[in-house]
């Protein structure tokens, strides 16, 4: 029945062995997209969903109305966060490859999204991340040791051994628990924001979801409820072009940008160069202010590229050309911010090298400390009694019985 089939099947631009081709990407020049007032009516700013907000130009200057005009010190902090995130990811990947942890997921290539957004948000704003937002933890200053202990499921694991590596959470830091089920956090963020509005509090919620994950129903729930109640929330689609082995077109990204998904509900969309720290920062400030002032939700699409494999269980060379990352037209967010700082005269290759070494050492030190709290094979271990806690606020009889049973078996 194949020959007659009229079903359309999306294709990525290139498969392994073929030349990467990013001609499908619509890219605006830096500085050209207008920045409307934060109270602009959604229907008057629809073009933002189709253009691409960019601040850093090819000469590493920052231009145009979305330029957030940050102090060089802030930019240096940002660069440090991005570098640290990348080094952390690299180290954790190596640890997994060496059998020290069971699993890992890198954010390489898309670090600017988490770092810029987190820096642009207020500390009271609540983050509902996906699994590729480790940058939030770095930007909000969580100790890497804590993250590593989680990945090791050791005695200091914040999840008490209950979750796979990288499924962090941080109540005090206002970062929500990561779920293995895709997209569930997005309408939860909307609910959180609705509660803030009900209580008359100023905090807003921000949430992140991958391009592929927008196909899940919770994305629709989030847009509907955010639109109906005008919840103070930022919904970020991190379009890194791939969802495991499927190209973003399989989530419907072939025809219109993900930023346009909310327009039909009256939610403004902004498409931004996700590898441009300044553009992401500027857009986030705009959307956060809009939400905080009561003008409702914004959907931001970050155009970026998943430079690494999906996870340590994945082998991307099976489904895409190895060279794609080198050819990615929006470059490397780390490199671009670095060159901008150098262009500003606020950074140098030497300082970069020094910082790099410092961070490498810091990460290694953290890792050593983390390992001292236990590893998969050695050192102190969590008490299996923990397994029965927190199913309920108070342990009911049947779980007490099961806990006692296990104790008996182990004794």
């Amino acid at each position: 029945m194949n020959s007659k089939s009229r079903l359309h099947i999306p294709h990525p631009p290139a498969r392994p062995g073929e030349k990467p081709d990013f001609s499908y990407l619509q890219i605006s020049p830096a500085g050209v997209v207008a920045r409307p007032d934060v109270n602009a009516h959604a229907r008057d700013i629809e073009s933002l969903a189709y253009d691409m907000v960019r601040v850093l130009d090819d000469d590493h200057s920052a231009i145009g109305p979305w330029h957030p005009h940050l102090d060089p010190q802030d930019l240096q902090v940002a660069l440090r966060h991005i570098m640290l995130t990348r080094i952390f990811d690299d180290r954790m990947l190596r640890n997994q490859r060496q059998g020290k942890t069971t699993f890992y997921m890198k954010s390489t290539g898309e670090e600017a999204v988490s770092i810029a957004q987190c820096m642009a948000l207020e500390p009271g704003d609540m983050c509902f991340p996906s699994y590729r937002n480790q940058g939030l933890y770095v930007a909000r200053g969580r100790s890497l040791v804590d993250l590593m202990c989680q990945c090791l499921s050791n005695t200091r694991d914040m999840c008490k051994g209950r979750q796979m590596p990288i499924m962090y959470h941080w109540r005090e830091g206002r970062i929500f628990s990561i779920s293995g089920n895709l997209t569930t956090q997005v309408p939860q963020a909307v609910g959180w924001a609705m509660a803030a509005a009900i209580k008359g509090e100023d905090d807003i919620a921000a949430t992140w979801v991958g391009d592929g994950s927008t196909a899940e129903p919770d994305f629709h729930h989030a847009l509907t409820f955010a639109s109906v109640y005008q919840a103070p929330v930022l919904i970020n689609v991190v379009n890194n072009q791939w969802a495991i082995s499927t190209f973003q077109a399989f989530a419907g990204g072939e025809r219109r940008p993900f930023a346009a998904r909310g327009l039909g509900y009256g939610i403004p969309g902004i498409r931004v160069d996700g590898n441009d720290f300044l553009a992401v920062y500027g857009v986030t400030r705009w959307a956060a202010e809009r939400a905080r002032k009561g003008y409702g939700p914004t959907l931001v699409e970050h155009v970026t590229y998943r430079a690494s494999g999906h996870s340590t269980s994945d082998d991307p060379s099976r489904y895409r050309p190895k060279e794609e990352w080198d050819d990615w037209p929006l470059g490397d967010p780390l490199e671009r911010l670095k060159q901008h700082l150098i262009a500003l005269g606020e950074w140098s290759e030497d300082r970069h090298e020094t910082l790099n070494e410092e961070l490498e050492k810091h990460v290694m030190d953290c890792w050593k400390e983390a390992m001292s709290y236990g590893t998969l094979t050695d050192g102190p271990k969590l008490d299996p009694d923990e397994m029965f806690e927190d199913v309920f606020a108070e342990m009911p009889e049947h779980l007490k019985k099961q806990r006692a049973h296990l104790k008996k078996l182990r004794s």
Partner: protein
Amino acid sequence: MANMNMIQALNSAMDIMLARDPAVVIMGEDVGYFGGVFRCTDGLQRKYGEHRVLDSPISEGGIMATAIGMGVNGLRPVAEIQFADYIYPAFDQIVSELARLRYRSAGDFWAPVTVRTPCGGGIRGGQTHSQSPEGIFTHVCGVKVVMPSNPYDAKGLLISAIEDDDPVIFFEPKRIYNGPFDGDANKPAVPWTTHPKGDVPEGYYTVPIGKSDIVSAGTDVTILTYGTMVHVAEAAAQRGNIDAEIIDIRTMIPLDVDTITSSVKKTGRCVIVHEATRFSGFGAELTATVQEECFWHLEAPIQRVTGWDTPYPHAFEWEYFPGQERVVEALELVMEPA
């Protein structure tokens, strides 16, 4: 003390909790201005405002997800799913999120959401307004599961549920919203005014989650049941002239194993009655628990009286519904000498 039907009792519970705790919010389809298709939230929006009692989009998954987010942000949402038959679009948010949030975050995050939903048959609702899906939720770790059988318990249990820091799935047997129903559809409807459990205090009180209720003491056989079937079981025991100890389970998770096993150890016989379909229904767990705990006391196989293993059929409602006749049959079977 006032006389209330179950709808009024539930309404009163929510009214009291909205007044006592500013964190309590109600949300669901048609629950606000209209007061709910069964009128359980009647008048609450007028009294507490549109920001405490929210009409929602027709999206059970969205209701559940946003309720979780609200719960994480310090509110105590009471979400209504209009019919239990429509809870499935919210299933992922309940099972993967609501039930496991506290566990996966090692106690750092939780959402004290109460999910109210009318269930059960006997109202000519056909396959999409009659289901009893409680058994499915009893296999989910991290939620409590409750079903009252009368106005007094309904109010007390709903207040407990709203105050509970754990998620509670609160099933309301809609056939007995307006009066107890003993399974005989040909008899004139009886209002709650004629039933002692229709007397309901107007103020705050609780009925504890995790405790069953011995509805009538007896020595011949233990009947384990809940919801509408409590009344059917009572009528059947009378009709069969059997001195049954009838236990209203009330709370499926956590289950009050002690009350159940003490009774079966005493009577040596057990019949389990529920409306839900038989295969892998909650009666299976009750049977398993009883046979594990009371095996040496059992004098006959435990019998299950349940809905047939088909979708709920509109026209054959009374052939489908496990009525008095079938309960009597099981009671007689279990009383037979070996």
